[in-house]
């Protein structure tokens, strides 16, 4: 496929992974204000893609397009195409609830339901009717908590409220909740910005493990985090995708001056 935006500096390397999601000429308006301009971005399967850029650059807006979270904002209009495999997720016949099960999301601030740890994880599978028996549900909850690297720490406290966990544990609980409905893609919007370095390290370790089974897109303000956890990085600036490529290249030898200025801390 040809890149439609001639200004975009995209590495022309041969991609070794299939494309799981792709945005084509994505535009977003909040009322009269345009937040994204013709963004073309491909998300590779089983890879971690970081979206970086200064505040207000459109990275979270783009992330939120990937599972139609922007639908919840009345004045938001999305244009262009967003493909998940071969489906345009903005097609009228797409069931948004089902879409969000396939493309899960973890937010900046851990937001467990005011329910028990068990119920936090069981909620998704239950509303999607994924488990028929109690035994099945137990298994899904335990596996999800294990995959989120949380099970060992809380296995004796499954009935306690999720809100009673530490910040880092709450965030991993939210990841377990996202995993429980067997998503294909997990979107993370600054998942570590409220965590201490140790909790951050645990989440980063988890992201690396999750990559084996899921495609991950992460928005982060920490350049070091993007460099550590992702295989590909996309730099946004003022609603444009400026540069996208292998993370190793972006952080050692970016092509665009704006990327260089941003990652080296030279933005005025």
């Amino acid at each position, binding site marked *: 496929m040809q890149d439609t935006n001639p200004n975009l500096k995209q590495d022309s390397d041969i991609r070794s992974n299939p494309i799981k999601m792709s945005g084509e000429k994505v535009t977003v308006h909040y009322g009269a204000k345009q937040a994204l301009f013709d963004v073309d971005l491909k998300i590779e399967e089983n890879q971690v893609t970081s979206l970086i850029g200064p505040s207000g650059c459109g990275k979270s807006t783009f992330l939120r397009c990937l599972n139609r979270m922007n639908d919840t904002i009345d004045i938001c209009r999305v244009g262009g195409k967003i493909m998940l495999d071969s489906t345009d997720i903005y097609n009228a016949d797409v069931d948004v609830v089902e879409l969000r099960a396939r493309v899960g999301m973890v937010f900046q601030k851990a937001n467990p339901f005011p329910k028990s740890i068990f119920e936090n994880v069981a909620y998704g599978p239950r509303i999607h009717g994924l488990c028929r028996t109690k035994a099945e549900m137990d298994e899904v909850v335990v596996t999800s908590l294990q995959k989120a690297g949380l099970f060992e720490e809380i296995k004796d406290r499954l009935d306690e409220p999720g809100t009673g966990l530490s910040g880092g544990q709450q965030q991993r609980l939210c990841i377990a909740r996202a995993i429980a409905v067997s998503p294909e893609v997990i979107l993370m919007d600054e998942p570590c910005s409220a965590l201490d370095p140790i909790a951050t390290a645990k989440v980063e370790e988890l992201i690396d493990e999750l990559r084996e089974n899921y495609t991950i897109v992460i928005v982060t303000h920490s350049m070091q985090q993007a460099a550590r956890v992702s295989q590909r990085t996309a730099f946004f600036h003022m609603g444009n995708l400026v540069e996208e490529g292998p993370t190793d290249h972006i952080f050692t030898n970016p092509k665009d001056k704006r990327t260089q200025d941003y990652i080296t801390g030279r933005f*005025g």
Partner: protein
Amino acid sequence: MTEHTVSSYDDDLRNLTGRIAEMGGQAESMVEDAINALVRQDVKAAQATAAKDRAINKMEQQIEETAVLIIARRQPMAQDLRQIIAALRIATDLERVADLGKNIARSISAMDGKTPPKQLLHGIEHMAEIVLEQMRMVLDAYTTSDSNAAIAVVKRDDEVDAIYKSLFREFLTYMMEDPRNITFCANLLFAAKHLERVGDHATNIAESVYYVDTGKVLEDGTF
């Protein structure tokens, strides 16, 4: 290049490049002084030159400390990161250059007071001129971040190698002519070899300069 938002970061990097430039100047003049002492067969000057090596080692150590501190404090990225990595590599090269200057200076006292023929000394002098010019060019290329100038230095290294080869043949002839020539010829040969190595370090530095400027590794076939 645009300044960093945190201005002390720029001060840190300027400090680092300033130190490299200073160390480069010192290493270069050490080789120059050693060659002058050799040509004039001035043992005292040679000893004074060799003694400067310690100060240059100290400079290398300080550059390393500065670079490590910047990495720890700033977590540098992209060109900043390349600049710091290059500073570490260049400091190592310069330290080696100073060592070679010291070796040349020391070879003088090993000549048993025998003054080699002018003609042979001219050969060494000529080689030294080119090698020192290479050093000056590469240090200029470093301060101006000029990858084209760096390429020019790399290209010219063949010339240095060719001069070394021809000097080698010349010394060999002298040694075959008269065994009494062997001691000073062998020492001059070492000096020439040391100069050839200085030229190689200039090439290494040029590769580092190219890397800082372009982010790419300068390989055979790049130019």
